[in-house]
């Protein structure tokens, strides 16, 4: 059965681009999330738009479930394919189809690497603003699926704010053109609905993105604080001031020390309780005025020192520490769970205290490096996955962290997606009716639910709905006879 399917796919893409041996499949067993692994039934790597369409049509005919995957940098297990599913890898579809410097638009294939688009736009003084920490590897297709964020999304918005149109390939092999070049939805906002659908509605075959001009002036400030609480209060003060920094990032001491001990050392003060990285960009006069105001706010909130990066090299060094923090955490322990949650910004000081307490309760090393300006936390749990008891504690601590964030009025994920990892947390924030509505919407795009099965919404919430995808009727209480 699998052999026949492999042969069929090989006819489309060539035998070299179908992987079926156990050793070959191992490469595709996991994404950026170390706690989950699954071996796909087959892996296929189409090399062109035509091949991809033919592959999806063949899978539709065979009734085979499949999972689309970009670079595999996702942190929620969203691109894991279990043994019944074919993994459709999109990295070969990596052409930038067009850049319109006048209208600030780019059209790309899904396998284009995030940073490559900005590099290509640089000659026109433009860039693609969303910048996940994995931007040197992650793909635009994956960014669309997960509605990826990044440090500079505080000012510029996340993926959904930068995608104007999509040509999508639906699981039945049909095509749909969503949105319009200018950005007006051309009907209900299906681009907005598709972005963040975690590969369960289909594949973004062509992505039309907005490009932003490079800011003429940039100023990066590094402030160090004696405590996390003081740094959190500085965050609140900046947000309340009305100034919107391009980025407002926090790192706690555990993270600072890991970075400083690594090859990514950025010159952060290792005795600080926490540091804030604040970046302001825009026109020179505005940046100068805003950074003076921010500097004052930082100092008033108890910063021990505030240092400004004055050269591009210095700025790059400060950012390197932040962007490579996850890599640096490898010095603490062999494995790292990068958690992702969002809380109302005013609750940051208390929530960070509670996360620290959870770490102590479970005897785990938790370091924090996160998008403080958005209230988007990334508590990182360092551990050794070879120790099952420890792995179990990591799982329990993660669940408790989520519960604390939800209790504060937050969300279980700000930018990594639900994937396989957070499936069980969905009922913490959505009731059964809302989850079943999500299932019904998914069935509009994928009636047979073959695209990325068993992700985002726990399956049992989908059973309340009829097989035709129509909702059950709510019956109002009958009125009494007069």
């Amino acid at each position, binding site marked *: 059965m699998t052999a026949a399917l492999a042969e069929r796919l090989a006819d489309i893409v060539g035998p070299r681009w179908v992987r079926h041996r156990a050793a070959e499949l191992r490469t595709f067993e996991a994404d950026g999330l170390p706690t989950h692994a699954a071996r796909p039934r087959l892996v296929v790597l189409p090399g062109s738009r035509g091949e991809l369409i033919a592959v999806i049509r063949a899978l539709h005919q065979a009734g085979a479930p499949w999972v689309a995957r970009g670079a595999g940098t996702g942190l929620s297990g969203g691109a894991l394919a279990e043994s019944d599913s074919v993994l459709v890898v999109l990295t070969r579809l990596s052409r930038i189809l067009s850049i319109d410097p006048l209208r600030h638009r780019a059209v790309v294939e899904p396998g284009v690497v995030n940073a490559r688009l900005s590099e290509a736009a640089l000659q026109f003084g433009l860039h693609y603003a969303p910048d996940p920490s994995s931007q040197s590897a992650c793909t635009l297709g994956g960014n669309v699926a997960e509605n990826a964020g990044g440090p500079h999304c505080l000012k510029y918005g996340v993926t959904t704010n930068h995608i104007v149109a999509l040509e999508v390939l639906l699981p039945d092999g049909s095509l749909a053109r*969503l949105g319009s070049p200018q950005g007006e939805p051309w009907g209900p906002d299906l681009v907005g609905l598709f972005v963040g659908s975690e590969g369960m509605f289909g594949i973004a075959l062509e992505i039309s993105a907005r490009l932003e001009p490079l800011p003429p002036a940039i100023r990066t400030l590094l402030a160090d604080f004696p405590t996390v609480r003081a740094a959190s209060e500085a965050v609140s003060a900046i947000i309340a001031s009305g100034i919107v920094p391009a980025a407002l990032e926090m790192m706690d001491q555990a993270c600072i020390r890991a970075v400083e001990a690594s090859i990514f050392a950025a010159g952060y003060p290792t005795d600080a309780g926490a540091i804030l990285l604040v970046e302001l960009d825009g026109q020179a006069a505005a940046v100068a005025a805003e950074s003076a105001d921010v500097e004052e706010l930082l100092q008033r909130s108890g910063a021990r020192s505030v240092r400004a990066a004055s050269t591009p090299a210095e700025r790059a060094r400060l950012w390197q520490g932040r962007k490579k923090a996850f890599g640096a955490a490898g010095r603490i322990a062999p494995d790292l769970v990068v958690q992702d949650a969002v809380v109302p910004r005013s609750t940051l000081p208390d929530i960070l205290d509670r996360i620290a307490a959870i770490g102590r309760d479970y005897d785990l090393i938790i370091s924090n490096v996160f998008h403080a300006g958005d209230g988007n936390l990334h508590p990182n749990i360092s551990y050794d996955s070879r120790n099952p008891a420890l792995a179990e504690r990591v799982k329990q601590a993660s669940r408790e962290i989520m519960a604390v964030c939800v209790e504060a009025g937050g969300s279980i994920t700000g930018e990594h997606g639900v994937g396989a990892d957070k499936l069980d947390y969905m009922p913490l924030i959505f009731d059964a009716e809302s989850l079943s509505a999500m299932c019904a919407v998914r069935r509009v795009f994928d009636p047979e639910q073959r695209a990325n099965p068993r992700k985002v919404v726990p399956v049992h919430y989908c059973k309340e709905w009829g097989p035709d995808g129509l909702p059950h009727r709510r019956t109002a209480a009958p009125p009494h006879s007069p």
Partner: protein
Amino acid sequence: MTSAIFMRLRHALGDAAVGSDREGRPRAIPDSTDAVAQLCGLAHEQGWRVRLEGRATWMPADAPADVALSTRALARVVEVAPADLVATCQAGVPLAELQRTLAERRVWLAIDPPGHPERSLGSVIATGTAGALRHGFGPVRDHILGGTIVTGDGRVIKAGGNVVKNVAGYDLTKLQVGGFGAFGVVTQVHLRLRAVPERRATLLARGERDALTRQARTLMEQQLSAVALELFSPALAAEAEWVLALELSGTAAGVEAEATRAAERSELSWSRLAPEHAATFWRTTSRGARAGAVTLRLGVFPDGLDEMIDLLAERLEVGLLSAGAGRGLLRWSGEAPVAAIRDLRRIAAEREIPLTLERAPWEIRQALGHFGAYREGVGVLVSKLRSTFDPNATFPVALEGEHD
């Protein structure tokens, strides 16, 4: 039938929540999500058609229906959290009232849609109508973090959340923004707010239209940091000439520097409005859009504005027109027959420019639809989504219109 509907509605919602419209048909005025859900559940079961009216200040309340649903009693600002820059409020809150409440806490909602100041927030969401500030703050969808939706069969769905960044689950909120109420009634929303800036300034330049659009493009190349850069037709600006309006916002130093740059880098003569005059200018242009019976929105790039305005002048009239001179989009209000709008929509579509009917009498909406024909593969998705959220077609909303 009407008296039976009155009776059942009064029983379900209470006497106070049931009135009648101009034609003597029942009008439900629920004050809670549950009451809206009860109404929709009942309508679904009985096969009633429910017309969503909001506060009846934007879309004519003329869709054929058995019951009207007014959101004027859903008018509570539930919570304002200035430190988190978020607020939760019911969908029937008049926008002007919401802004006043927010201003007391030194925050604001960066949306300035055309229409009456008492226009409901829900109406702005349903029609996806953003004003000049979309230049700096994005379309309506960027301000809506989540909310509560009642479907056509009376189910209550929560979408999104109350935090500024969130990717948990599919983003069902997006379907509601600009969905014209075809996918349910939004009863409550979570909003993204902004802190009140230190300084705002409005500058106007007057002149020939093509000179203004050209200079606006020059300012964009210079990366002028503006929150609005909008072109107004003489009729809409109530002036003798075309007007380019520039709105700056931020720190005092930043705003002054940009005002200077605008003057230095363009060949326009700018006049700066005193704050009270600025408020009057924006209010006048917002309200002016309602003077015509029809409002259209065209998704056009800035470099295509002149051509599109010429086309409008040729096919309809210049009328009450505003356009995003920096980032595109054109809004037109006036009187227009069905055939002329249909022609215009066809020509626009050939240029990959969508034309959305933002406001029109029912006979025009019915004939043309808010969106008309979709691009490849979209129609079937929209129709399935509609039957998912409104299985009995309880809401009379003409998304596609009649086919030619």
